[in-house]
């Protein structure tokens, strides 16, 4: 009943203040794309070894710090030409992907591989341990305070509204180049991942390992290699998300992976953990719920939630997780796709 009332309120809000509502959706989609990229790493690893890699959020955070470092090392500033700026951005993106992949692969090699046949709790605790270790490493590496990334985007483009500047629309809806970039980088990566999993030999080996590890081994598949590749690919996606996040949110701090990681885990579960499409859908759901809760819910429906504040957003999102677990334990796409990963 509450959900119905909430839905009616939101529909009315969208009708009453369409531009404001659209703005929240745009912010939610951009954040959702980031969450989806991280969630894919969770779901990829879970799909193949049934492990919730709680260190994944911190792998994302380390990617963000590495991207900062790469850009700072190149010494590129906004006075340089677009080509040089783009080259530095691509270098940082690829660098953070490789760096996060290496960390994720290293964690698997050092700890998880040794615990393949241990009780499930062992690698889970191990993952939490690595999460704290990586946070501390980040504190020692860059300090505990928030860092702003070196300028890679000319300041006039930070508040640039594509709808007004490119299309001449008189609207309060704001789409910045950064909002667009987040989605435009994320979507090709998702398509590439789908292609990799569905079409390549390695992807098929990973899917076989996910279905039945022993049978895959009997068929000559190197199971450990397939699992390692899952960690490498998941890490690369986390690294890409780190690079995008550091410029999208314009800061990095050691704790950034904790909240993004939890939201991404929630997205993976809501979408159906182990299912790639589910992770993406879950990411967008969480991103939009986050955005609406932070801004829209207080005013609509009908001002009945005027006591609502942004501090309740985590409760709402984890409430979504609980509701999903209770009413659809396998998640939104958990049962509709026959094959995992």
């Amino acid at each position, binding site marked *: 009943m509450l959900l119905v009332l909430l839905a009616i309120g939101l529909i009315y809000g969208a009708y009453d203040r369409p531009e404001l509502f659209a703005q929240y959706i745009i912010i939610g989609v951009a954040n959702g794309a980031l969450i989806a990229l991280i969630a894919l790493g969770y779901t990829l690893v879970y799909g193949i070894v049934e492990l919730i890699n709680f260190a994944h959020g911190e792998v994302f955070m380390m990617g963000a710090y590495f991207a900062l470092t790469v850009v700072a090392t190149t010494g590129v500033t906004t006075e340089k030409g677009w080509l040089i700026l783009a080259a530095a951005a691509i270098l940082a993106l690829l660098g953070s992907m490789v760096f996060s992949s290496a960390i994720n692969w290293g964690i698997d090699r050092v700890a998880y591989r040794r615990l393949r046949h241990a009780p499930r709790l062992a690698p889970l605790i191990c993952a939490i341990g690595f999460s704290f270790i990586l946070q501390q490493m980040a*504190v020692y590496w860059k300090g505990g*305070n928030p860092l*702003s990334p070196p300028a890679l985007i000319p300041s006039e483009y930070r508040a640039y509204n594509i709808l007004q500047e490119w299309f001449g629309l008189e609207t309060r809806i704001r789409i910045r180049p950064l909002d667009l970039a987040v989605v435009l980088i994320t979507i090709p990566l998702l398509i590439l991942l789908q292609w990799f999993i569905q079409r390549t030999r390695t992807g098929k080996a990973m899917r076989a390992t996910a279905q039945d590890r022993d049978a895959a081994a009997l068929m000559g598949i190197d199971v450990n290699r397939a699992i390692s590749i899952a960690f490498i690919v998941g890490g690369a996606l986390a690294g890409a998300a780190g690079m995008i996040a550091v410029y999208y949110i314009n800061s990095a701090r050691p704790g950034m992976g904790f909240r993004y990681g939890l939201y991404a885990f929630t997205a993976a579960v809501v979408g159906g953990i182990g299912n790639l499409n589910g992770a993406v859908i879950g990411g967008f759901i969480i991103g939009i719920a986050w*955005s609406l809760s932070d801004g829209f819910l207080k005013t609509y429906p009908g001002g009945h939630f005027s006591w609502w504040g*942004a501090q309740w957003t985590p409760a709402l999102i984890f409430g979504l997780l609980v509701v999903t677990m209770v009413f659809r334990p396998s998640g939104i796409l958990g049962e509709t796709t026959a094959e995992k990963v």
Partner: protein
Amino acid sequence: MARESIAGLIAQLHQSKITRREFTQRAAVAGLSAGLVGNVLAVHAAKAQDLPEAATIGIPGTPHTTDTSKGTIKLYSSWPFTGAMERIGGHAIEATYMCLEDFGNAAGGFAIEYEPLDEGIAANEGRWDPGKATENANRAINDESCMAYLGTYNSGSAAISVPLTNVAGLAQISFANTYPGLTTSFEGATEEGEPDLYYPTGTRNYMRVCPADHVQGDAGARWAIHENGRSKAYILHDNSLYGKGVANVFALIFAQEGGEVLGNDGYDPRASDYQSLMTSIADAGPDIIYVGATVDNNAAKLLQDMRGVMSADDVTFLGPDGLNTDTFVQGAADAAEGAWITFGGFSADALVELGGPGADYVARIRERLDLGETGQPDSYAVYAYESMVVVLQAIERAGAADRTAILDQMFGTEGFVTLAGTTWSFNDEGDIDNPVIGLIRVVDGVLTFQGTAN
């Protein structure tokens, strides 16, 4: 140059014709052994002129002896100083050490040992942790040689440690707690039962050398309306005891003074993005946003996202002392430009301009922290220095390793002259009776003192 006679030097020292420092230097030239120099100094009470200029603050006329024949007194401090709190906490510790060294690591006939305890934990990015707050307080309480407990930084942490030190009869003095409810009751800003619930014995043992938030919030709200010309405020807080408290006082006074409060909400300090929150606030049409928060609660990111939808020309950003640190300015980068902050006291630059002990303090703390000639030590480090002076002078007056006697002397501090040259006394509740609220603004990326707000 002919050697001076040892007896002549000692006579000059006793007649206060030379300082202890001059005596030490000239005695060495005259060939007096280090041991004998120590013996002479040990029986000679230090005079004000022996101390570095910064250490001449406090209650005028309080003697200081460096004799340590009575034994050792231990002092502990507890606040976070790693991770996100490395700068704030680290500077406060350095100021505390500097004060102790200025006083020759001794007071009242005792050698003074000081040990800083970290209240932060790695899992919390270095922020304070309730478990650590309890652990640190218990460590001080259970050390019989501990006569005073310095701290905390966070008011929420003091709410945990004060009842513990209260039962143990241990004096606690904070350089940074500003939540009103720790010492007093203020309608609209404190909770029912405060502050009595923090003092189970019914006797006060806690004091602070910085102004409380009911003074700061009040000054900030009046300044916003009458000086800054603002009339519609949106208020955010980090849900901490401190942040919520100062935000509530600001809201109360802002409304009382004729302003309109459009909202007073908490925000999630661990979130990485506040664009939606700021979009909804911009839609409400405020001309000032007040953020009750400490820097470690993501306030810099909040300001960045605020400036994404509200320009500095249209909407003022005002924050309390918890944001008065370079960490906040660096975190917010360009978005910090033009932001206003209230702070209970004076900035380092203002102290230099005032000259005297404040300028001496700034010059020497800059050197110790390797900040160069213009670097900004954290503003709260001034209070860390002053709170140590309160403790050392109380030990001096008590002259005994007795928790009750030292607590009485600390609480009885009257006419304390600060590094800025202002004077205060502790009132019955442990607050200073003459608080000064300074106004700071970010100009060209630097926290710049603008004057006082009250």
